[in-house]
């Protein structure tokens, strides 16, 4: 028979097995895995783009190229050529005058099309309802913000003098998309049309002007443009996207992605367990078919080929079905979240479907090839002697290929080696521990003496089928763990994440508070009935040497490192590490019994910046500040939780090192929306204060957390499905044997009640073990997610133990009883015939 005939025969055999229901479980497992992976793939792809865009609202564009000199026209023409929208902007500080007063203002000259992302909102009267601006200031007019209006005591229509120009105020700005970037927006705002800029006479050699070319468009084009720009940047020019500008947004995005990917990984792992169980059952149910085929002249290779072709075809169809289901599901998800995601979700690309397809085939073949190869070894003599059964090599070793496939998939999906290894290692360790624990407990429990025949029979079953029971316990444990994680841990974790950024998280920073102003500031807050926020000392200094090597931006190729080498650092001192910091290397200063650090010449550095600058523990850093210098050794590295919105420093020292330097203080506090009067009063009383508004960034991060939490809940539905498939597969895996045995017991005179009790006893022990493993696993997973991804403390949940173990005992005993109930109902002869 040619290979076409062979494929046809394989497909006919496949159709027969399918019709007889032999493949349903395998197919369902693959469909659920693929649907889970593709939903997450499609959805994260789209949400990632959308969230990025949403984050980009804070930049006003997708990418900004800026320089301290006019940018070459090629930056704009190339962007246009790549199909991107382009706008121009100049921004610089300058005096603005009006009504006989003047103030240092931030001037922003914009071109038509600004802003490309986010909203510019204006109003006609102070504190009147605002609206979205549909244009930019008309030539010959300016728009100003509340701060300028109040400082100059102007009203709309009044004239503002900027350089040589006198321009009337046409509108009041209430919200700018790009206002929160960096420290630039310290001064009141004047926004004008770029056509008016020349007439002001302010653009001269030596002016502190920042020229910007802002682009927006399709993600791929933006990426291509960035690559093009990166290759052409000159000194003094730089390119930034939101991720360069706001670490808070970047870390929230990273977290969101990790969360979603982990949810998808989890469903893949569960589906793998289901596929492995189902493949094992398929093998056991096809031993006879193989023996008969061998007996009728099929060679060993042919039997294997027939089954492999069948499984490839099955994998193909199930993976396509899963991809389609995933595509539809993500569509439903997008519709459901539609009201939450404020920007339109971009269309889905084809890659997630391809990924899902590959995942499905890999899962099915990875876990079924070893059993299928084993089928080729079924001796034909089995047709005469049924006791010659499962061929050798079907123990743990048979799952090596499956384990390799899972490891590969996890590493691929996790996108980074460390996370991948963590997840795979955690899963493998959990399975191993679960297996060993189950093994030990099964031996111990089955030794328990009892007079009840049902209990003895149930325990004897456990002991006799030890390997199968261990596999069953481990699989059920994983399934129940998925359910627990889904129902209890998920809620707790998402709550923790949301709580990590409460509604009253600090949204304003005050910089440049002088020591002698502190008592007045305390009084000010007391009068406003706001609790005095914690003040952090801050010293500005330039990094001059790392060990004995002088620091120069020319030594670094990395853009960020060059900027860091050029600018002044903000340093602070503290006795204890802040709560939102995590030590990653070294030791935060030891303190003596008086709470004093044992030595004062040490630094604790933020991990990311240390990496960027190539600084390691033990390096001695020398800083210059106002003509004097000081040095200390880096003794620890910290991870800083930037999206906590607390005041944080790249470098901190223990008390005693920095106090001699010129010091100011910084703090952050929550300002209720609309409380502009407080800000005005604050600025009026303390004119030297620099006020930084992070409310918009904060809102953005908060809404991202809400959206991602919903998305995670949806994606976890697939994990739930996968968990249920695992539970079913695990119960079904020993079904035939159980039925057969119970039938023999019945023919020997066992009563229905005795058999039912024996089954329940056995399943209850399995359920208790699985529940124990599941509760431990779910708690460990919750801890890992909380500490590794959300960076919050996690307290072990007692509910998980109580609910996990009790529900698992009851649920699995009930499921097991229902599954084998038919033997109690129908005649033993019929069961024997079905199983023969």
């Amino acid at each position, binding site marked *: 028979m040619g290979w076409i005939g062979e494929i046809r025969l394989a497909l006919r055999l496949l159709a027969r097995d399918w019709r*007889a229901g032999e493949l349903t479980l395998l197919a369902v497992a693959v469909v659920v895995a693929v649907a889970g992976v593709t939903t997450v793939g499609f959805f994260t792809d789209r949400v990632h783009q959308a969230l990025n865009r949403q984050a980009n609202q804070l930049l006003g564009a997708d990418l900004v190229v800026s320089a301290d000199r006019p940018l070459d026209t090629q930056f704009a023409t190339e962007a246009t050529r790549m199909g991107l929208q382009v706008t121009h902007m100049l921004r610089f500080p300058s005096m603005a005058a009006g009504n006989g007063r003047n103030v240092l203002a931030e001037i922003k000259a914009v071109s038509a099309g600004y802003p490309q992302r986010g909203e510019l909102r204006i109003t006609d009267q102070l504190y009147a309802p605002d609206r979205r601006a549909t244009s930019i200031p008309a030539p010959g007019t300016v728009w100003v913000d509340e701060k300028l209006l109040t400082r100059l005591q102007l009203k709309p229509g009044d004239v503002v003098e900027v350089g040589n120009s006198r321009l009337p105020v046409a509108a009041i700005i209430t919200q700018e998309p790009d206002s929160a970037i960096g420290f630039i927006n310290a001064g009141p705002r004047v926004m004008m049309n770029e056509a008016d800029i020349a007439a002001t006479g302010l653009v001269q050699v030596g002016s502190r002007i920042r020229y910007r070319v802002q682009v927006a468009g399709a993600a791929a084009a933006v990426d291509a443009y960035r690559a093009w720009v990166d290759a052409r940047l000159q000194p003094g020019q730089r390119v930034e996207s939101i991720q360069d500008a706001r670490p808070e947004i970047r870390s929230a995005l990273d977290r969101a992605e990790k969360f979603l990917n982990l949810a998808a990984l989890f469903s893949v792992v569960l589906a793998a367990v289901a596929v492995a169980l189902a493949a094992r059952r398929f093998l056991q149910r096809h031993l*006879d078919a193989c023996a008969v085929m061998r*007996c*009728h*002249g*099929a*060679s060993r290779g042919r039997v294997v080929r027939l089954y492999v072709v069948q499984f490839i075809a099955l994998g193909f169809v199930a993976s396509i079905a899963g991809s389609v289901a995933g595509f539809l599901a993500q569509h439903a998800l997008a519709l459901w979240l539609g009201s939450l995601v404020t920007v339109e979700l971009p269309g889905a690309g084809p890659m997630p479907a391809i990924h899902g397809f590959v995942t499905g085939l890999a899962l099915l073949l990875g876990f079924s090839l070893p059993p299928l190869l084993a089928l080729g070894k079924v001796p*034909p*003599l089995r047709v*005469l002697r049924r006791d010659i059964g499962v061929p050798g090599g079907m123990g743990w070793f048979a799952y090596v290929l499956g384990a390799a496939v899972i490891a590969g998939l996890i590493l691929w999906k996790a996108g980074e080696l460390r996370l991948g290894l963590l997840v795979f290692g955690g899963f493998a360790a959990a399975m191993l521990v679960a297996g060993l624990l189950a093994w030990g407990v099964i031996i111990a429990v089955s030794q328990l003496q009892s007079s009840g025949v049902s209990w003895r029979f149930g325990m004897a079953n456990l002991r006799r089928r030890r390997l199968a029971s261990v596999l069953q316990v481990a699989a059920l444990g994983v399934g129940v763990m998925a359910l627990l994680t889904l129902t209890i841990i998920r809620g707790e974790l998402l709550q923790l994440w949301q709580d990590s950024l409460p509604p009253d998280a600090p949204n304003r920073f005050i910089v440049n508070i002088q020591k002698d102003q502190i008592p007045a500031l305390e009084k000010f807050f007391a009068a406003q009935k706001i609790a005095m926020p914690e003040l952090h000392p801050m010293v500005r200094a330039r990094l001059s040497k790392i060990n004995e090597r002088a620091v120069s931006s020319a030594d670094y190729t990395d853009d960020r490192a060059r900027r860091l080498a050029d600018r002044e650092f903000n340093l602070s001192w503290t006795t204890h590490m802040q709560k939102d910091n995590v030590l990653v290397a070294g030791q935060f200063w030891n303190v003596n019994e008086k709470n004093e650090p044992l030595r004062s010449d040490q630094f604790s550095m933020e991990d990311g910046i240390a990496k960027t600058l190539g600084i390691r523990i033990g390096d001695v850093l020398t800083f210059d500040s106002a003509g004097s210098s000081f040095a200390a050794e880096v003794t620890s590295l910290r991870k800083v939780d930037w999206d906590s919105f607390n005041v944080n420093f790249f470098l901190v020292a223990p008390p005693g090192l920095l106090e001699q330097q010129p010091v100011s203080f910084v703090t952050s506090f929550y300002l209720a929306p609309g409380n502009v009067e407080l800000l005005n009063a604050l600025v009026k009383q303390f004119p030297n204060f620099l006020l930084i508004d992070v409310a918009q960034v904060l809102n953005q991060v908060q809404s991202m957390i809400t959206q991602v939490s919903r998305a995670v809940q949806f994606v976890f539905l697939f994990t739930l499905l996968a968990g249920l498939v695992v539970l079913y597969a695990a119960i079904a895996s020993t079904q035939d044997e159980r039925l057969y045995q119970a039938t023999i017991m019945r023919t020997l005179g066992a009563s229905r009640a005795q058999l039912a009790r024996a089954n329940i006893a056995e399943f209850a022990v399995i359920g208790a073990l699985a529940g124990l493993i599941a509760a431990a696993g779910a708690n460990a997973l919750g801890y890992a997610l909380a500490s590794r991804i959300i960076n919050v403390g996690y307290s072990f949940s007692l509910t998980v133990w109580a609910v996990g173990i009790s529900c698992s005992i009851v649920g699995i005993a009930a499921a097991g009883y229902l599954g084998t109930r038919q033997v109690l109902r129908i005649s033993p002869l019929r069961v024997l015939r079905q199983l023969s």
Partner: protein
Amino acid sequence: MVRVAQLTKQVTTGDSALTILRDVSFSIAAGEAVAVVGASGSGKSTLLGLLAGLDTPTSGSIHVDGQDLFALDEDGRAALRARLLGFVFQSFNLLPSMTALENVMLPLELAGAPDAANAARELLGRVGLAARLHHYPKQLSGGEQQRVAIARAFVTKPALLLADEPTGNLDAATGAGIIQLMFELNREQGATLILVTHDAELSQRCGRVLQLAGGMLQ
């Protein structure tokens, strides 16, 4: 058709070796019907397994249609089975996921025969199951299942039919019907029949009886 020479089969259980067949030799001519009889444990089924090339002997040889079975590897013996042999088993060995028709079609499909469905249908009609083509084994009675198995055995028109206690799982009346059918088909197709049984009445219907006791031919 079949030539068996000095066939010995030993199995090792723990420390001791158990001899199941000892120095068995006989020949069977084409078209003969031979019964192999003996008590339980006399080695009947082991002999049948060796005759079918499903198992290998400790020593000795079997020639089927002039071919030394054990000069072939397992796949070679499988090919020989496909070409020459048909089987009827005590436990029927029907595949539960296939209908009666599909069970009978299987050997033809494996051989790549062009019109498996028609040949199978015809033979199922011949064994009286024309109305049960699309029933699954579990929907058939024991006698019906064995008739499906007989149809499957004869559908390839084998030169040699091996039957292992074909009535062992059936009541007397059903068993008699099955035997009748098997002999009829055997006659029609002119096959050589080797029948393992401990049913004395059944062995009487064969032209020759080989008696096994303690692994030796009496």
